[in-house]
């Protein structure tokens, strides 16, 4: 059976609920936007229900502990194809097992989830590192990113703790939403950004901003030791796809 859901985490949990309700042992759970149609299998559209989602989540938490349930959420944010199926198998394995399964790496679903969580964690950490705020004329520190996975929800706490005394916004251009801190709380926002947002135009940004970018770039160049050059290692740490957001690389 194929369950189509709305791409939200609650939607996914509701799908799990339904699969159990229908006693379906090997469901396919697919995001609506990715579903291509299927002639052979029965298709069921999931209605996202907070109540069902909470029930599933409680059960999962009881079985997998806070670490295991966190792993499920992080892996879900990877948005990988078929991650829902892996997660379903993971939950299935946890529910029938009498032991804690979160470290049973020889089980294919547990291993896949662990690997995915690692990838997502790495991307989250990269965002902590590679976000470059640019100060706008209305004194908001503004950054644009395009993470491989949908990690911004995981970055909120870090940035909120760190930049408690400045307004900031990190905007995911790929998924078209951002997280915005207004000195009190962090909210999810959607903006219509001009195509030129990557250029630090003085229409939006302070003139001082551009000078700081140059200072940073200068600093970056000065710290390099030419006789130790190691381009491979450099690109391994700072993959090229991030360069367009790093002033030390694009200036």
């Amino acid at each position, binding site marked *: 059976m194929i369950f189509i859901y709305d791409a939200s985490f609650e939607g996914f949990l509701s799908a799990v609920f339904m699969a159990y309700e229908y006693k379906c042992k090997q469901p396919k759970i697919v995001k609506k936007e990715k579903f291509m149609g299927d002639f052979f299998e029965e298709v069921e559209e999931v209605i996202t229900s907070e109540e069902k989602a909470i029930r599933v989540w409680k059960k999962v938490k009881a079985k997998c502990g806070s670490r295991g349930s966190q792993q499920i959420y992080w892996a879900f944010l990877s948005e990988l194809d078929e991650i829902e199926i892996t997660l379903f198998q993971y939950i299935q394995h946890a529910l029938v097992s009498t032991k804690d399964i979160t470290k049973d790496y020889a089980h294919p679903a547990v291993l896949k989830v662990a*690997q995915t969580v690692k990838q997502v964690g790495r991307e989250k950490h990269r965002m902590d590192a590679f976000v470059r*705020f640019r100060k706008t004329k209305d004194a908001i520190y503004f950054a644009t990113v395009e993470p491989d996975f949908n990690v911004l929800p995981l970055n909120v706490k870090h940035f909120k*703790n760190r930049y408690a005394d400045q307004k900031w916004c990190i905007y995911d251009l790929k998924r078209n939403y951002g997280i915005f801190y207004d000195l009190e709380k962090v909210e999810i926002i959607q903006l219509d950004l001009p195509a030129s947002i990557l250029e630090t135009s003085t229409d939006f940004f302070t003139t001082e901003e551009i000078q700081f970018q*140059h200072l940073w770039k200068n600093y970056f160049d000065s710290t390099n030791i030419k006789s130790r050059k190691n381009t491979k290692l450099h690109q391994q740490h700072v993959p090229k796809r991030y360069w367009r957001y790093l002033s030390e690389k694009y200036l």
Partner: protein
Amino acid sequence: MNFDRIKEKLNILADAAKYDVSCSSSGSKRQNKGKGLGDSSGMGICHSYTEDGRCVSLLKILLTNHCIFDCAYCVTRKSNDIQRAAFKVQEVVDLTINFYRRNYIEGLFLSSGIFKSPDTTMERLVQVAKKLRLEENFNGYIHLKSIPGASDELMHEAGLYADRLSVNIEIPTREGLKLLAPDKDRKDFLQPMKKVKDEIIRHKSEKRIIKSTPKFAPAGQSTQMIVGATNETDAQVMYTAAYFYKKYQMKRVYYSGYIPVSYDPRLPSIGTDVPLLRENRLYQADWLMRFYGFSIEELLNKEHPNLDSDVDPKLSWALRNLHLFPVDVNKADKQMLARIPGLGMKSVYKILGARKYRNLNWEHLKKIGVALNRAKYFMVCNSKEWEKKDLSAMNIKSLILQNSSSKFRNTYNNQLNLFDKQDALIQY
């Protein structure tokens, strides 16, 4: 802010600071309280990487590169004809804050050439840290250099504002130091180090009784040694490191392959390659000592005063101690697992976790991501196949070398050809 002037100073003073390899920004536990700026309670973050592949985590600069000393290995030595510059205290504060707010850095690493006297220099460094903490409410990471010869009072104050303090002993041996830095005395390095160590211990014990005891250098102390500037052996370097870890409770000792910066006849000439492979092996030995339960005597001793260049120190140790292998991965304790060549602590923990559920065989190990190309000769698992059978140490070594590639291969092949014909014969 005069950006052009700052840019010029930044170029000079960042360039001069880059030979200090420490860039750690972790281990501080300084939280952001009362909505200030910055938080260094989490893990360290590398915000960028230089083209030589080193992490950029801190704004690493000298306050000034004017210096009254003339240490041969140092680029800012008095007799070197280079451009000199000096930052004002407020300039460093502004740069740090503005870089930090843009998420470029985790904090500041401030060092300095010694102008006038050690105390004047140290006092200026402390002023920067104090301003950042008290006026800017800054909770990011601050690493200050302890200036050799600075007074105990200043070192005490430094520890109250900085997360980490470090003195670089630079030259691993007393004789080397005498040769290359005749105006410096080893005592002057050790004194601030000892003061800081004693204060850290005192603050920790007071904290147990009085909760409100202020933090004192919560990320501890570190030091750095240049390798390859004098003709010291690996054993001399690592025994010195072990001494500092033990006696001064160092958080880290860094090893920095000497980068030729002078035509001084006492030193390798300009254009000599940086000993990157040796540096790498020293770090491997350091890790084995700190995280893998090895004692320094097992890795380096009278018979083996230098680490092997063609294989890593753990493999080299295992080949000398084949009687301890193979290890059964389904039964061995953590300590012994950690001694299998090619297994990192992460793999060790994965094995410990996974073997609770089933007896592991080669397939399982491969699946959970254990690298077997070296390890397979030193372990057995739930399988009848065992790679080592009755291979000798030399056989194993050559099999491993055949099946691996290293960017250093050219380096050590040359070294072998030149110095170690016999080993080279064995290898091929």
